[in-house]
């Protein structure tokens, strides 16, 4: 059974949709922190790696799945708050390029700590391995994790939208993303906003960690690294200044790589990164502030 165009199977379509959903979550996690701190967190993938290890080790220790998920959320939140305290705060006044290099260093640091602590080979999160089994929907076999990811991503994004539009914290976050200085003068508390953004971003990292582990239970020190690189490109592609734009950018690049990866034969799909990054460069040249922004140029904070 196939979708009409491109000879795509429903399976590929669902997988691409779920990859798009996960990447959208990661993109909004990166975009939220960028909004308030003007900082692109290269180490986001290592947060996800840490969460994935939490799930894997919980499964090795024989904990029930819900406890593994709780551990994952706890570890990722603790780590992102630690990162905020030790690195983001002291660097707040520096240029975006310096902060990008700093998080690049943190990413490598965390990765080698993982190599040191858990070894190169990796651990298998067998407790959620059952998510890899397919559901039979009207003769089409679709992995459970694909459907779970689509639903979870949609729910998370809806909740975030509610948070941003219906609560005072959300209002403050949006104000800070537009103009941090002015919003502070108008009574927005900087630490609260930054803390909120880091927390929500960490929560999304934990959720993404769960779903990526569901897709691929083999957790290694470079888990999530490739995904983060693609998502970073997607975030810049969509536009960093607005969470919605970043989300759409992440979804687009995830969906595109899912579709292309599934539809192309292996001898062409190995060049997939080249196509994706080529497209990103072209878009950056045409619209440096991103595809889904309203043409408002990225204002560097002085």
């Amino acid at each position, binding site marked *: 059974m196939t979708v009409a165009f491109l000879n795509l199977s429903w399976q590929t379509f669902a997988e691409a949709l779920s990859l798009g959903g996960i990447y959208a979550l990661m993109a909004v996690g990166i975009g939220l922190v960028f909004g308030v701190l003007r900082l692109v967190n290269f180490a986001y993938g290592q947060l996800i790696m840490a969460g994935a290890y939490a799930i894997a080790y919980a499964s090795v220790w024989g904990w029930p799945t819900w406890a593994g998920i709780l551990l994952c959320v706890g570890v990722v939140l603790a780590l992102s708050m630690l990162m905020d305290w030790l690195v983001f705060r*002291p660097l707040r006044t520096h240029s975006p390029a310096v902060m990008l290099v700093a998080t690049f*260093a943190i990413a490598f640091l965390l990765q080698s700590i993982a190599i*040191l602590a858990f070894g190169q080979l990796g651990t298998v999160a067998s407790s959620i391995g059952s998510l890899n089994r397919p559901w039979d929907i009207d003769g089409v076999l679709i992995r459970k994790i694909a459907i779970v990811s689509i639903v979870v991503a949609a729910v998370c994004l809806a909740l975030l939208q509610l948070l941003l539009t219906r609560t005072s914290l959300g209002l403050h976050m949006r104000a800070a993303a537009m103009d941090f200085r002015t919003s502070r003068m108008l009574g927005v508390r900087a630490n609260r906003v930054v803390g909120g953004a880091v927390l929500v971003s960490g929560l999304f990292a934990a959720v993404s960690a769960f779903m990526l582990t569901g897709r691929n239970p083999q957790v290694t020190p470079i888990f999530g690294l490739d995904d983060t690189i693609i998502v970073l490109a997607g975030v810049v592609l969509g536009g960093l200044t607005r969470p919605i734009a970043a989300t759409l950018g992440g979804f687009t690049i995830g969906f595109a790589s899912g579709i292309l990866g599934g539809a192309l034969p292996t001898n062409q799909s190995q060049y997939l990164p080249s196509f994706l990054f080529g497209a990103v460069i072209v878009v950056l*040249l045409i619209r440096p502030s991103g595809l889904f922004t309203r043409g408002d140029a990225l204002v560097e904070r002085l």
Partner: protein
Amino acid sequence: MSLRRLPELLGPALLVLAAALLGLGVSASLQTYFLDTLVKVSIVVALYLFIGNSGVLSFGHIAFVALGVWTAGVLTVPEGQKDAIMPGLAHYLLHTNVGNIASLALAAGVGLVFAFVVGLPLMRLSGLAAGIATFGVLEIVNNVLRYWQSVGPGLNAFSSVPQSTGIWQAAIGALICIVVAYAYQRSRFGRQLRAAREDPAAASAAGISIYRQRLLAFALSGGLAGLAGGLYVHLLPIEIDSLYLDLTFITLAMLVVGGSGSLLGAVVGALAISGLDSFLSASENGVDVFGLQIDLPTGTTVIVIGTLMAVILVLRPSGLSGGRELSLPRGRDLSHLRKARAST
């Protein structure tokens, strides 16, 4: 050229010469570390020429190094052995071979031309967009070299390339990079680009084309990176996996720790981090220091260097050198101006 400016060139050059002389006096196994260090100096100086002078971040320079590796490597593997390590090589490359010096010159040329072509569109970007776009260049070059077997060995290592990078070739290569970087930053082009780095609006108002100056610096530094790649492949049988994120990380760390604002900073950073890196890597395999057996677990190197880089970025963003060059004490002292600027 005034005499007062001479230390700006001599300082870094003498440091490199000292490292080379030191490398001559040690055992062959220890010498590999010095050779590696000198090649790293070339890469970091190439990075400095663009990042330091323009203030624009580039994650893409390792792509130019990789192209240098491929150019010099493919053209110098002995004809009889090309089939063995590069089974898919295109016909015209199969029977083309050049000498050592020619291969290095071609590596530099390919790096320069490719950086120029890539820079034509990319140099219009700045800030984060430039960072991500140059990262894209690295991804694409890495991806293509990894799978396109008509132009090289793909995933195989460049074994049987003549190992002509001895201590002198490595030192001369690093010195060439330093002289080019010095000549550039003292030229009117370098000054224009540095002016644009400090204040883009004022620089454009004074009639400087920021785009053109960035493009020139990008192409030049691409050429130096290509040369460094050529030196690298003549040093050890390198493969595509070692020309990716790890090398990008370590060379950026060198530049940042040394201080990206000055040539001295680039060289000092490369030497210091290379020394640390060599010592720690050796310790990971077990080493004797004054009768003390040190045996560190694998991965310690990156942890130490990553921490150092983060600490330097937080506490001293202008690096060890503080962005200053060596200069003779007499003459006008402008440091108070810099301080005044920093405090505003």
